[in-house]
């Protein structure tokens, strides 16, 4: 196994997270470098995710590296029944690192255990998507000037939304206060509330969006994802419960910023886009710099004692 893999945000210490964010700021100042000259990075997307794949591929290309891979499992040998273990071994003969999106949860951990080259998890089912979490943190840091002592409202699908779960874990280093805003069907699962209590993180839970984020520094909106529902009736009942409109922002803090992992559907009305508090498109752009930082970190050689140089 390569120790440099990034599978879950919990794999990174507070120091490693801050070091990635610092490095991302460097890449934002100067995104075009040739530090990956001669390196080959594989992007294996066993389920399609255009946004994440293009962002990783752009990150590699801007650093002078080359890309191989596939964007759909139908065009890969897994459609012939090849195991993930075999695919990873085969690809690691060609590539210096592997960026992987897979529909099964735990696929990235398994891949990292069998792979001789670093694995970057670009999403394993409903489980982890650490590059999204790191770009969320980078966006929070950039807009607020700090990660410490912020009030963060998480809105929408808090039950199945992996981005909000990972964000709670990652923010736990920085003394946040959370407000969970969701319908009963999509409430934050108990294990994350237990996690907050154990880490002395204050949180409140409410059902209504209106007027419930006036003290917030960050309003983190999420999409209710059809593909996470076993029961489509339940999806139809909850999909349109929260829509953020421009006039709802009048009493919010001037420094409030609205984040969303995108794509959005109905949860943010387009009239919010022109408000200076809307940050979601810039957030997506930040993903490029953060992914440049991640790819650079996993490709740094290990010293003899297993630490990175």
């Amino acid at each position, binding site marked *: 196994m390569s120790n440099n893999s990034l599978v879950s945000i919990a794999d990174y210490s507070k120091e490693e997270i801050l070091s990635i964010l610092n490095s991302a700021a460097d890449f934002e100042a100067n995104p075009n470098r040739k530090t990956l000259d001669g390196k080959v990075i594989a992007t294996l997307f066993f389920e399609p995710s255009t946004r994440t794949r293009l962002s990783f591929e752009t990150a590699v290309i801007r650093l002078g590296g080359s890309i191989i891979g596939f964007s759909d499992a139908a065009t890969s040998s897994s459609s012939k029944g090849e195991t993930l*273990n075999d695919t990873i071994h085969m690809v690691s003969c060609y590539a210096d690192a592997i960026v992987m999106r897979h529909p099964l949860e735990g696929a990235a951990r398994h891949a990292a255990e069998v792979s001789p080259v670093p694995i970057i998890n670009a999403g394993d089912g409903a489980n982890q998507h650490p590059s999204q979490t790191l770009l969320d943190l980078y966006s929070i840091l950039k807009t607020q000037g700090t990660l410490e002592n912020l009030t963060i409202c998480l809105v929408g699908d808090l039950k199945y939304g992996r981005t909000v779960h990972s964000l709670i874990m990652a923010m736990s280093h920085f003394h946040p206060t959370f407000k969970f805003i969701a319908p009963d069907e999509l409430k934050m699962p108990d294990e994350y509330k237990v996690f907050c209590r154990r880490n002395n993180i204050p949180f409140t839970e409410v059902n209504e969006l209106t007027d419930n984020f006036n003290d917030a520094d960050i309003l983190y909106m999420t999409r209710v994802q059809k593909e996470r529902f076993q029961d489509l009736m339940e999806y139809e009942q909850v999909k349109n419960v929260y829509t953020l409109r421009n006039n709802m922002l009048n009493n919010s803090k001037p420094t409030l910023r609205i984040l969303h992992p995108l794509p959005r559907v109905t949860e943010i009305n387009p009239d919010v886009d022109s408000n200076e508090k809307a940050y979601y498109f810039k957030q997506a752009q930040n993903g490029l710099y953060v992914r440049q930082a991640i790819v650079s970190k996993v490709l740094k050689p290990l010293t003899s004692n297993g630490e990175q140089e």
Partner: protein
Amino acid sequence: MEKKLKVAALRNGTVIDHIPSDKLFKVVSILHLDTCLNQITLANNLESAKIGSKGLVKISDRALEVDETNKIALIAPHAKINIILDYQVVEKRPLVLPEEIREIVQCTNPNCITNHQAVTTRFHVLNNDEEIMLKCHYCEREVKRDDVKIK
């Protein structure tokens, strides 16, 4: 005294007593006793003052290793393990739940990689507050000890 005679005394080997009756055959499976060639005595639905109805396993001429007996701590935490030498109990072994459980537990998440490909299951035992939880090493889903599925 009369109770003890229901199952013949063991000269050398391992006795596992106070197994809940509904867990006896799970214990047999976890310890792979179905392929063990030693003499084995199984008894089930015996009266027990402590747990109502119990099962019992005697394995002749084999002292189970600590790693082996700890595997049953998950499903029969109150079972009693005695190692016998020349009809004497030479070791009363407490059961300790290991920090990591490999192979014997199946992940309850249908979308976990371990339920689709040949990956040995691994669970981390979390002992938070009063409840023991198992966390899948792969999909990171947590399950309560009582809801665990044994393969």
